[in-house]
């Protein structure tokens, strides 16, 4: 990765973090796009799996800090999806909008599953509703937002093809 590409990626990642803490609270919807997941996934596919795991871990810690009760759950979930994204990208991922959307949806859903299991605060029924209803919807919102951002900022966010 050359320096320009790295800087563009870092800028895009920072922008997505800012969006996470500005757009989501502003909208206040029950179903929100997760810009942190988008950022981690997009950055992960540019990195080696180990680097992606570190990025996911640090981003997860940032997202966990406002809610100390589940501190570590976000870090664990982000680590896993970042590593998986990087590893899957290296194996077979293609540069396709529909596949990107699917990639974001699955990434967000997987994040929610790991997070819900790790924080173990929800009851079984709440977890079922969360993981089978709200998480897929949030995943769809994340996929939509991710694809839109990719189209808008193609040069900065376009992943490196394998």
């Amino acid at each position: 990765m050359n320096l320009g590409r790295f800087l563009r990626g870092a800028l895009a990642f920072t922008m997505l973090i800012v969006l996470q803490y500005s757009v989501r609270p502003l909208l206040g919807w029950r179903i929100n796009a997760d810009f942190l997941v988008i950022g981690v996934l997009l950055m992960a596919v540019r990195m080696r799996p180990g680097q992606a795991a570190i990025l996911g871990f640090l981003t997860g810690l940032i997202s966990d800090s406002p809610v100390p009760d589940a501190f570590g759950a976000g870090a664990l979930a982000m680590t896993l999806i970042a590593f998986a994204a990087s590893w899957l990208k290296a194996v077979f991922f293609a540069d396709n909008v529909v596949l990107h959307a699917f990639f974001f949806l699955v990434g967000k859903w997987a994040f929610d599953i790991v997070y819900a299991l790790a924080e173990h605060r929800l009851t079984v029924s709440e977890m079922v509703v969360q993981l089978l209803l709200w998480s897929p919807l949030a995943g769809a919102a994340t996929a939509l937002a991710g694809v839109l951002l990719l189209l808008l900022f193609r040069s900065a966010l376009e992943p490196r093809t394998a």
Partner: protein
Amino acid sequence: MARATRTDSRVDTAVLAVCIGLALFALVLPDRSRDGVAAALRRTIVAPLLVLQRQAERARGALVERDRVNARVDSLSLNNALVPQLRDENERLRQLLGLGAQLQWGFVPAEVLHNAGGIAEDDVVMLTAGATAGVRSRAPVVAPDGLIGVVTRTDPGTSQAILWTHPDFRVSAMAADGSAFGIVQPHQGPDPDRFMLEMRGVAFRDVLKVGTVITSSGLGGVFPRGIPIGVVVGELKTLEGWARTYILRPAVRPQDVVHVMVLTPDRAASDIAGVWSSVATADSAVRRIAAAGDSIARQEADQRAARQRMLDSAAAMLSGVNVAPSVTASDSLRPRLNIPGLKRDSVRRDSIRRP
């Protein structure tokens, strides 16, 4: 090459294991340690993001509040639009209350339904009180301002009345001081004069001045003496050489009337002299009592108090006494008091001087 790849892969796996280990360690940390680490992050790296989040939530709150405020303003505007209508109705009801208090007995209150019940004529109305309530045919229909018409037909629950604008309407009338008599009927002139009355058959020797109040005379047995009918606005030149005809401005405009009183036969036959002359007094008394709690009255009281304070401040200033800081003098003070040498600036300075 393959060896290097294998090494990289091992390193990646090791990093993953370390990250997972750290995350699990964070999950099982004691609450105190966990809070400490989270707080340290919130104070440093995450602090700008939390500020951003707080601002965004505040902006959202403002947007939601704006919608609520808009809804509140809309409902207030709607209520405000009804205020003049309610005020008018209140005024009418107060006047009617004053009339009822003066009549004391022998009347039936009713609402007027203009063009109701299939009656297409403008000068015939339906009243919401009928024979069951004591309304009889040929009963006078009156309002706080004077005579409106006469009942022509009654049903158990409703009755029908002709207004003074009806071509068949006649009432024996006189000047309020009893100096002249005549018959009042609607003036059948062109449109602008259509809603006027004319008093016919006034003796040639009786000259009525403009502004003379005309009331019912009590002759004829239908209308009791003393109900206001109108005010003389001029003499109408006619071919009749032995009598005068006067144009009257009616005391009541029928289209404005919603609530009326129908006099019962007993009341119409009895003395009602002085009822209408004291209606105005009673009305104003009722209004004063009712308005005591009104905001308008409070506002007026505040204005009076402000005027009084202003005069007090001027008096205190003239006598060299310091004025309380909250008292402010108006710019119009100087010309009103007409005090030579008293400048506006000095007034303002004195009035705001701290003790």
